């Protein structure tokens, strides 16, 4: 039942924000690949709200090629220009969804300026 998972995820977010334990953060990043849209959204919102704290975990996912479109979107929403060149490298990705997410992410980053 996704509702129980959602409450578990919210508890996990609180614990991660309080302790900074990476394995908790990885659980949240891993939820970006959930089949359930509610869980994916809660994870994404929580990572954006965490800001810089979430960046190393998102970069890990980026390097592993996991959940690429949503990870690119979240990184842009956090708004750190240090990862701009990395996002740019995905704008010619063979998967059109990834390439489009990267292009949109670059536009959002440009808005942060």
């Amino acid at each position, binding site marked *: 039942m996704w*509702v129980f998972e*959602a*409450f578990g995820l*919210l508890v996990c*977010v609180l614990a991660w924000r309080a302790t900074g334990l990476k394995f908790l953060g990885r659980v949240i990043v891993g939820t970006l690949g959930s089949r359930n*849209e*509610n869980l994916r*959204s*809660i994870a*994404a*919102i*929580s990572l*954006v*709200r965490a800001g810089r704290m979430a960046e190393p975990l998102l970069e890990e996912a980026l390097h592993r090629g996991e959940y690429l479109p949503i990870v690119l*979107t*979240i990184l*842009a*929403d956090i*708004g750190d220009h240090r990862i701009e060149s990395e996002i740019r490298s995905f704008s010619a990705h063979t998967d059109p969804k990834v390439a489009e*997410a990267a292009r*949109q*992410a670059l*536009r*959002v980053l440009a*808005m*942060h300026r």
Partner: protein
Amino acid sequence: MRRDLYNQSDRFAWSGGYSYDARSLGANDLVKWVDLHREQGLDLFTHSHGGNVAMLASNRGLRLGKLVLLSCPVQFRKYQPNFGQVTKLVSIRVRLDLVILADRCGQKFKDSRIRENVLPIWFDHTATHNPEVWKNSTYGIPAML
């Protein structure tokens, strides 16, 4: 019957991002898209922050017929429509939407010009765009529009 613009190859889409900047960019793109397609006055069905994109766009020249806000996270100070640009505003939501809760937004519009409808469904942010929910006559969604 109006044309289904969502079913076209060049349909409008925005990044679906989780920041004000992403939504603001989406609003600019929506205004341009509607101008390009000469669709001023169209009816829009929006889900989640898509509703906030549409409300921002209404302040940037977008004229709408009906604006239907499905499970829209409420941040009325940041996102409110230009009521003069929208003929009718309808909000449809569930009880205690967990995604909106995680986003720390309001669940309910308090402005009486936005007609609030609450489905007898708990927690599920996606229920309002689920075709099965729309087809289920016990919810009576068509009558809310």
